[in-house]
C-alpha cells in the first residue's frame, strides 16, 4: 500500500513540476512554428514570475498579477519581434539579450523595491493561488485505484496544472486544425510562398509571438504565485531551456512535446525523492549529481534519441520582402 501511495505522490509531483514546462513548450511551438527562434522563454518566464508576484502583492489578487504578467510578457515578445522580425536582427542574440536583461532587472528591482537580496515579500493566502480540491475528493479516497487516481493524483493541484494540460489539445487544434494554424506553419516553412498568397508574414509572426507571450506568462505565474509564495532570484532555473529542448525533442508538435515535458518533470520529481536515499549496490548518490540529472537528460535527449531534429524550414531567418 505504501508503495502505491509513493507512486501516486511521484505522479502527482510530476504533473505539478511539468506544468511550467508544458506552458513554455506550447509557447515555444507558436514562436518557432512561425519561424522565430525563442530562447527567451527562460527570461520571459522569470519576468512573469516577478511581475505576477509583485502584482498580486500590491493588487491583492493573484489573477490581477497574472494579467500584469501576461501584459509584460507580450511586451517582451513584441520586443523580440521588433528586433528580429522588423529590424531583422539576429534572433538568438535578441533572446540572449532578453534573458540577461531579465535576470539582472528582476533581481535589481526586487532589491531596490523590497530591500531583500532578490526576494519579493511572501504572499498571503488571498494573494496567491491555492490548491483546488476536486469535489468528493475526500469521500472517494478509500476506493482502491480509482480513489487514489482521483483524490491523490487528479485532485489538489493549482489551477495552472489543469490549464497547462488543457492547453495542449487547444494548441494542437489551433496549430493543426484552423486556418490560422495553417498560415502559422506556412510562415515558418516558406514565408515567401505565404507572402505571394497575400498573407502578411510580419503580422503572422507578431501574432504568433503574442500568443507565445500569453502562454509563457502562465508558466511564470505558476512558479511565483502558486507553488511558491514569492519571487526569488533566477527562480526559473533553466526551465525555459528545458522546455525548448522538450519542444525540439517533441519535433515542434504539442503532443510529443507534452510527453517530453512529463519526462523532464518525472526526472525532476525523482531527483527530489532520490536526495539522501541509499540505493542498493550504489550507495548514496551525490546530491549535486542528482540535481544535475534534468540538465544531463536534456543533453542526452537532444543528442541521442531525436536523431536529427527537423526544424521549421525558415526558422531563424528574418523574412526580407523583395522589392
Amino acid at each position, binding site marked *: 500500500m505504501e508503495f502505491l501511495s509513493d507512486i501516486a505522490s511521484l505522479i502527482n509531483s510530476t504533473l505539478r513540476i511539468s506544468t511550467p514546462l508544458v506552458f513554455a513548450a506550447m509557447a515555444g511551438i507558436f514562436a518557432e512554428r512561425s519561424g522565430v527562434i525563442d*530562447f527567451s522563454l527562460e527570461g520571459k518566464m522569470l519576468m512573469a514570475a516577478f511581475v505576477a508576484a509583485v502584482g498580486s502583492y500590491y493588487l491583492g489578487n493573484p489573477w490581477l498579477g497574472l494579467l500584469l504578467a501576461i501584459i509584460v510578457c507580450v511586451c517582451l515578445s513584441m*520586443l523580440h519581434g*521588433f*528586433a*528580429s522580425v522588423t*529590424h*531583422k*536582427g*539576429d*534572433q*538568438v*542574440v*535578441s533572446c*540572449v*539579450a*532578453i*534573458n*540577461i*536583461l*531579465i*535576470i*539582472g*532587472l528582476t*533581481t*535589481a*528591482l526586487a*532589491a*531596490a*523595491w523590497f530591500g531583500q*537580496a*532578490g526576494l519579493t515579500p511572501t504572499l498571503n493566502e488571498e494573494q496567491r493561488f491555492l490548491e483546488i480540491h476536486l469535489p468528493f475528493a475526500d469521500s472517494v479516497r478509500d476506493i482502491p485505484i480509482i480513489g487514489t487516481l482521483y483524490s491523490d493524483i487528479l485532485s489538489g493541484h493549482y489551477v495552472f496544472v489543469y490549464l497547462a494540460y488543457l492547453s495542449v489539445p487547444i494548441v494542437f487544434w489551433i496549430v493543426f486544425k484552423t486556418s490560422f494554424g495553417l498560415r502559422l506553419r506556412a510562415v515558418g516553412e516558406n514565408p515567401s510562398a505565404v507572402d505571394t498568397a497575400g498573407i502578411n508574414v510580419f503580422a503572422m509572426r507578431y501574432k504568433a509571438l503574442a500568443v507565445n507571450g500569453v502562454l509563457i506568462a502562465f508558466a511564470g505565474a505558476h512558479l511565483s504565485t502558486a507553488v511558491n509564495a514569492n519571487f526569488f*532570484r533566477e527562480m526559473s532555473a*533553466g526551465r525555459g*531551456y528545458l522546455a*525548448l*529542448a522538450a519542444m*525540439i525533442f517533441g519535433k515542434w508538435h504539442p503532443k510529443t512535446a507534452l510527453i517530453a515535458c512529463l519526462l523532464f518533470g518525472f526526472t525532476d520529481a525523482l531527483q527530489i525523492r532520490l536526495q539522501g536515499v541509499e540505493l542498493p549496490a550504489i550507495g548514496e548518490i*551525490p546530491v*549535486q*549529481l542528482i*540535481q*544535475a540529472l534534468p*540538465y*544531463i537528460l*536534456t*543533453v542526452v535527449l*537532444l*543528442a*541521442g534519441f*531525436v536523431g*536529427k*531534429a527537423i526544424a521549421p524550414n525558415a526558422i531563424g531567418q528574418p523574412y526580407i520582402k523583395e522589392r
Partner: protein
Amino acid sequence: MSNIVVDKSKVPWWVSNVIVPLVNLTLALLVSGLFIFIAGENPIEAVKLIIYGSFGYIQGFAYTLYYTTNFIFTGLAFAVAFHCRLFNIGGEGQAYIGGLGVFLVAINLSFLPIPIVWLLSICGAFLFGAAWAYIPAYLQSKRGSHVVITTIMFNFIASSLMIFLLVDVIRDTNQMAPHTVKLPEAIWLPSFEAFSGILGIKIRYSPLNLTFLLAIASLFFVWFLVWKTKWGYEMRAVGHNTQAAIYAGISPHKNIIIAMCISGGLAGLLGVNEILGVSHKIQAGFPAGYGFTGIAVALMGRNHPIGILPAAFLFGILYQGGSEVTFEMPNITRYMFVAVQGLIILFSGALENLFRPQIESFFVRRLNKEVNA
C-alpha cells in the same frame, strides 16, 4: 543638371564601425539610466560614481584593468565561435572547468621552475576549457543539438560538478567553506603591487596581475588565427555559408570542433587570472557571470579583437565603477549592471540595424551634396 548618385558602399568605414556602435551604446546607456531612475536613484550621480570608481584613484583603475582582463578572455571566446556561426553561451562553465585545469596542474607541478609551471598551468586551463566545449561542439556537428541549449546545460552541469568536487573531493579539509587549499606562494603570478613598488607607487592591494599581458597576447593570437591563417579562413567560410564551404572541400565538422575548442580554451584562461593571479584557490562560483558578459563584450566589439579591447575596457569600467555605485547607493545592486549588459547586447547586437539605415543615408545625402556642389 545631372545628379551624380553616391551609393551606400561609399559611406566611410568609420560610420558603420564607430558611429553606429556608439549610437547603439548611447541608447543602451540611456535606457539603463531609466532603470536606475525606476530603482529610485539619480542616474547622473551614478555616472559620476562610475567614473570616479574606475578612474579616480590608482587602486580603482587597477581593478578596472583586472576586470578588463577577464572580459577580454570571455569576449574573445564568444567571438571566435561566432565567426563559425556558433553561439557559445557556455563561457561560464568553460571558465569554471578551466579553473579546475589551472589548479590541478599548478598544485601537482608546483615543484617545477617558475615560468614552466606557469606555462603548463595556462595550457591546463586552455585544455580543460576546450574539453568542456568539445562535447557541445560534437553534438552540434554530428547530432544537430543546438549549441545554445547544450552549452547552457553544460553551464549547469559544470556548476554541479564543481560544487561536488569542492565539497567532497578537493575541499580544504581545515575549512568549512567549499574551497580548495591555496597554491604555494612561490608560483603565484606577480601582481600589480609588485610592479608598482618598483615604479615607486604605493598601493595597498589590487587583483591586477601578469595575466593582463596574457590577455593582450590573446587578442593578437585570435586576430592572427582568424584572419591570417588558412584555418581561420575555413572557419569563417563555414560560418558564412556552410553549403559553399562544403562545396569548396572544407569540413564543417572539423571547423565546428576547432572553433568551439579554441573558444572554450579562451574562456578557460579566465581561470588563470582568477586562480593563479588573484585568489590562488578555487572558490565556488568564481566565474561570477564573466562568461555571460563576454557575449556583450564580443557583440559590442563587433567580434574583432580591435573592438573587443575597448569593449572589455568599457565593461571593466562598468564593473569597477558599478561596485562603487552599489557601495554608495543602497537601492542599486550589482544585478543592475547585469541588466545593463542585457541592454547593451540588445542594442548593439539584436537591434544593431535600428538606426543604421538612417545614419547611412544621412552620410549618403551629405556625400551627394558634396559631389554635386
